[in-house]
């Protein structure tokens, strides 16, 4: 089979999974639905491996292949086909997506075991994976936008999964609408590019761009690329379109692991990498991407320091890490950015899963203020969290160390003002170690809380009245809350299995690309970036050693300071917080992004809507345009009186009959 056939198979399995789960939503017993969903994704993973092997058997020049099934919309001015592009970049992405997704499906089988929406959950989850795979396999702009929007919809469905919670439905619509803003950016950007390249096909557009479809530093190209960035920022939660991601933590924890850490939010990184032939001709757009990425990684890091909800800390950490990736692919560090995407998928999914295990032990409670001393009660979870945390903090030899430093290394190599990015990156690394180990020291160390003690004694804590931790509302026990009992990794084999494999990835995945030793990712991706002027060459300067040692020291320093503040009793933390009051307030208020968007966009729109509905409709449309000309109204009432008297009815019947007669006449003539 050709590599594109495998590509279609990668899409076919999750689609079959969705259909099977939808059709069987009433009749699937027990955990069957979960296993069907997992199997569908695992088969997709095998197909992705098939694509990989077939592709590697071709020469480097023949590794980009397009296949089209049918004409979707080929008409005046557009040429959208149902086509996929299978090349090293998309194969890299489908391997990461299907691999991590399989594990998260398996984890979910236990985690959502007692939930009443079990089948629905797996149908959504399979639909999400299908959308994500469509996004990365799409061979043209239109199909990319379709995949782009589908993952947004799937994310909405999963965020609002417990739909009786108002907090969940609110978070869902917020995520959806911000994602639509991103879609709009993508569509507009496509318009700008289409105007010059006259094709929606990726390869065709890139060739046109290389052949000089855009003049040097073309304004349209810069505008188009910046609009594509808007799409990327919305999907990848970059400033200022990031506010939906922390709220998205309303979804079940495995969803956060899959969508809001490992896959969907990295779509923006993929987009920039995929569009590199365009971005490289629009350096201004590249700079915008790099600066926004750097700003995001810093700001998200500071917010992560002060959040008290464990999932939100990890969410801000995700934003921050994606900031690294966006910065990386925007300065031409494509392989490094994508490498970090992969290692991040492993260790961040792992962190979310471990957090899910704690949340299970806390019976749904997510506040760090209430967690304490789980180390002894949950040794396995602790181990996983520690591995994830060390990888995230960039401590060697864990995977995050290699991938993050490589991005910063290239920033340094490119020199000039990008030294600022380099500095920001290391400052961010310090913050990362700080907030990560803040979580670990608070949740796992110290004197065990009541729930941890109970678990140590062999009982799993269950809340008396299940309640929504976000607003304290008592759950609707009919349906729509996580279910009365919870699963934890210590006791559920599927969860342990998934976490173990991810932990192996988080430890070892960095070894495939070690500076001066091996360049697996670099070499593998190279054919997709064959025409790139920036694709990294294997020449490393002296900053390499400085970066590796410095990065390690910064990470260790962060951990040490975290221990000093949060590991040694609560007083230090409070004292610290008091001393840095203004900063603390700013960080805790999340830099006021939500408030600013509310003030600038949401309120004016709502006010205009109310004015239109309550004032304008009533006074202008109704009174002036309808009621005003009283003559008309009188004529109207006369008309209605005649309806009542039956006269008009008679006339109308005559008209109808007359027309019918004429029609009959022509019918007979024809």
């Amino acid at each position, binding site marked *: 089979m050709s590599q594109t056939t495998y590509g279609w198979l990668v899409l076919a399995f999750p689609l079959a999974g969705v259909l099977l789960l939808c059709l069987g939503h009433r009749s699937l017993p027990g955990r069957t639905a979960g296993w069907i969903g997992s199997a569908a994704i695992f088969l997709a993973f095998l197909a992705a491996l098939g694509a990989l092997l077939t592709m590697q058997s071709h020469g480097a020049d023949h590794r980009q292949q397009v296949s089209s099934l049918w004409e979707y919309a080929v008409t005046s001015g557009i040429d959208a086909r149902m086509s996929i592009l299978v090349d090293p970049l998309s194969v890299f992405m489908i391997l990461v997506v299907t691999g991590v997704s399989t594990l998260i499906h398996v984890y979910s089988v236990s985690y959502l075991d007692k939930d009443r929406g079990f089948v629905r959950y797996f149908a959504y989850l399979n639909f999400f994976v299908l959308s994500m795979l469509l996004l990365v396999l799409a061979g043209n702009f239109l199909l990319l936008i379709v995949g782009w929007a589908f993952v947004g919809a799937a994310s909405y469905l999963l965020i609002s999964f417990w739909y009786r919670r108002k907090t969940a439905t609110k978070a869902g619509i917020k995520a959806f609408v911000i994602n639509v803003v991103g879609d709009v950016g993508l569509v*507009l950007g496509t318009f700008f590019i289409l105007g010059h390249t006259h094709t929606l096909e990726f390869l065709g557009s890139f060739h046109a761009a290389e052949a000089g479809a855009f003049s040097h530093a073309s304004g349209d190209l810069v505008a188009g690329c910046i609009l594509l960035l808007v799409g990327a920022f919305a999907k990848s939660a970059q400033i200022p379109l990031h506010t939906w991601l922390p709220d998205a933590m309303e979804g079940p924890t495995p969803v956060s692991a899959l969508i809001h850490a490992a896959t969907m939010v990295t779509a923006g990184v993929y987009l920039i990498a995929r569009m590199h032939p365009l971005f490289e001709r629009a350096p201004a757009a590249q700079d915008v991407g790099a600066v926004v990425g750097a700003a995001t990684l810093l700001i998200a890091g500071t917010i992560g320091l002060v959040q008290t909800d464990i999932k939100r800390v990890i969410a801000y950490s995700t934003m921050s890490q994606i900031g690294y990736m966006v910065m990386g692919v925007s300065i031409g560090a494509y392989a490094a950015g994508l490498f970090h995407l992969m290692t991040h998928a492993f260790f961040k999914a792992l962190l979310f899963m471990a957090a899910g295990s704690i949340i299970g032990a806390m019976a749904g409670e997510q506040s760090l203020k209430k967690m304490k001393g789980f180390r002894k009660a949950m040794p396995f979870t602790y181990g996983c969290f520690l591995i994830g945390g060390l990888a995230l903090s960039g401590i060697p030899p864990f995977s995050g160390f290699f991938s993050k430093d490589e991005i910063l290394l290239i920033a340094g190599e490119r020199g000039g003002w990008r030294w600022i990015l380099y500095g920001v990156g290391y400052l961010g690394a310090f913050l990362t170690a700080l907030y990560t180990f803040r979580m670990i020291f608070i949740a796992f160390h110290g004197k065990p809380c009541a729930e941890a003690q109970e678990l140590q004694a062999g009982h799993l804590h269950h809340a008396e009245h299940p309640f929504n931790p976000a607003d304290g509302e008592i759950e609707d026990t009919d349906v729509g809350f996580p279910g009365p009992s919870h699963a934890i990794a210590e006791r559920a084999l599927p969860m342990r299995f998934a976490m173990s494999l991810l932990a192996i990835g988080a430890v070892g995945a960095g070894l495939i690309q070690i500076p001066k030793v091996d360049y697996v990712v670099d070499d593998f991706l190279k054919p997709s970036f064959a025409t790139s002027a920036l694709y990294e060459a294997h020449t490393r300067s002296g900053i390499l050693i400085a970066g590796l040692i410095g990065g390690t020291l910064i990470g260790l320093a962060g951990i040490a300071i975290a221990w000093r503040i949060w590991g040694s009793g609560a007083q230090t933390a409070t004292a610290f917080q008091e001393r840095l009051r203004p900063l603390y307030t700013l960080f805790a208020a999340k830099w006021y992004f939500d408030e600013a968007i509310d003030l600038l966009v949401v309120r004016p729109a709502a006010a205009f809507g109310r004015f*239109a509905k309550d004032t304008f409709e009533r006074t202008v449309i109704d009174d002036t345009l309808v009621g005003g000309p009283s003559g008309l109204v009188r004529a109207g009432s006369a008309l*209605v009186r005649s309806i009542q008297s039956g006269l008009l009815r008679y006339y109308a019947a005559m008209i109808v009959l007359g027309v019918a007669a004429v029609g009959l006449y022509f019918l007979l003539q024809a």
Partner: protein
Amino acid sequence: MPALSILIWLPAACGLVGAIASRALAGSPASRTIPGALALIGSVAALALSIGYIVEYTPGFQSAHLATQTLQHVTDVTWIASLGIHYKLGIDGLNVLLVGLTALLFAVAMLAGNLRRERTPDRPHLYYLFFMVAESAVLGAFLAQDLILFVAFFDLMLIPFYFLTGMWGEGERSQRVRATIKLVIYTLVGSLLMLAAAIATGVLASQQHGTPITFVLSSLQGLHLSRGSQEWIFLFFAAAFLVKMPAFPLHGWMPDGYKAMPIEVLMVFSGVLSKVGAYGFLAIVLPLFPQAAVHFQMLMLLIALVSIVYGTAVAFTQTDARLIAGFSSVAQLGFITLGIFSLQPQGAQGALLQMVNHGLVVAPVFFIILLLSRRAGGSEDIRDMGGVAFRAPVFAALFLIVALATLAMPGSANFVGEFLILLGVFKSKLVIAIIGFAGVVGASVYALRLFIRSMHNRVGPEVASREISIRDGLVLVPLIGAILFLALYPQPALKRSEGSASSAVAGARALTEPNVLRIAASQSGALASTQGGSR
């Protein structure tokens, strides 16, 4: 295929036979069911015929820039020889899909009427007679190729709706009356303006060119009016069509009207009748008055833009579910107008596709609102709903598909339509396209808000969650099937409308960008030769 007259008059004939049979059998129980059954048979037969026409329709040689589309299945009989009025019907790329949409929505409405759990409507013979006459008239309006014939069908199509609203409407009698008055006033004024404009077109054309008077569209296209005449006639037509759509600020009849109409009536009224106006722009106004269309392009674009923004804003503040759908239609029709007056082939084609798409989504939305109100203690206010999804996963899934199509989610044909529309506007007026995108974002707010407030959140006070019944499912399935088919494969629809859409704007384009057109013509000539070679 049989003549188009059969397609047009079949529904009315069925309605008439039903009415007569019902009177003849007065008193027996069959007298109450026969009209509905016959109406269903008539509308389904019309649907079968129109599907036949769609399948059989062969687009002539297609090029993006050349007007080579010819009419098919032409019926041409002199109606009133002395006035040059013909009874001329024909199918082209502009109306072929709309005829299918009309037949589908009427058939579905008849299905809904026959499957209604509640009693059959009062005086069923009249109810179904009016309904079927309406279908005949709408089909006639789409198929008419003579200006006066178009006007006649246009007016004929409105009359049954006055009665359907006034006599079988919902709510208080006084509200119904008020709604009917508004409807009559608005549409009557529009119709009169249009009649005057239509007569003026024929008369002035014959005066200015010294030819015998004619109202046949194809002949009128060759007889361009002077610029001054074009302009005022344009405004008259525009007024009539904009009222029908409805567009801001001529939508005053819509809120009361929509609230008063029975759901089946509303499904076809909002799904099909609004399209007659948009169709009129493409089939009549642009080809006959290209200079005026260029002259008033900005005005029309602004009306469209305001309709989008205003309709969207009201839709996301309204709590009455019907009005959410109603104002969302104002916004959607705004997009359609935007596409038409981009005066670009992409825009026109997107507008045509969007007419079909809007009809396909708005009809199920109204039907779903009926189902929701049955589950929410009879209220159509979204504040009284909530939590319906609980025991109704299938219903929720169907509603979700419709809601996502309504907000023109990429992957739906609605998105393809909006994409083409905005691409057309983008090419002609960049800023307007950018503002238009605000409507895209707003649509996601109101569509999801309607879905969430009714299906999700806590259970409303009088809500009883219930799965969709087979009967109701039967009504929704054909519509959702059509939505999904077009979502997966919009190409057949686009192929059929391509040539006619670009010829509809060709006249106006020749005025705005003569150079582009000349180059394009030579290019498409080259394209034609390569296409011929590949075949």
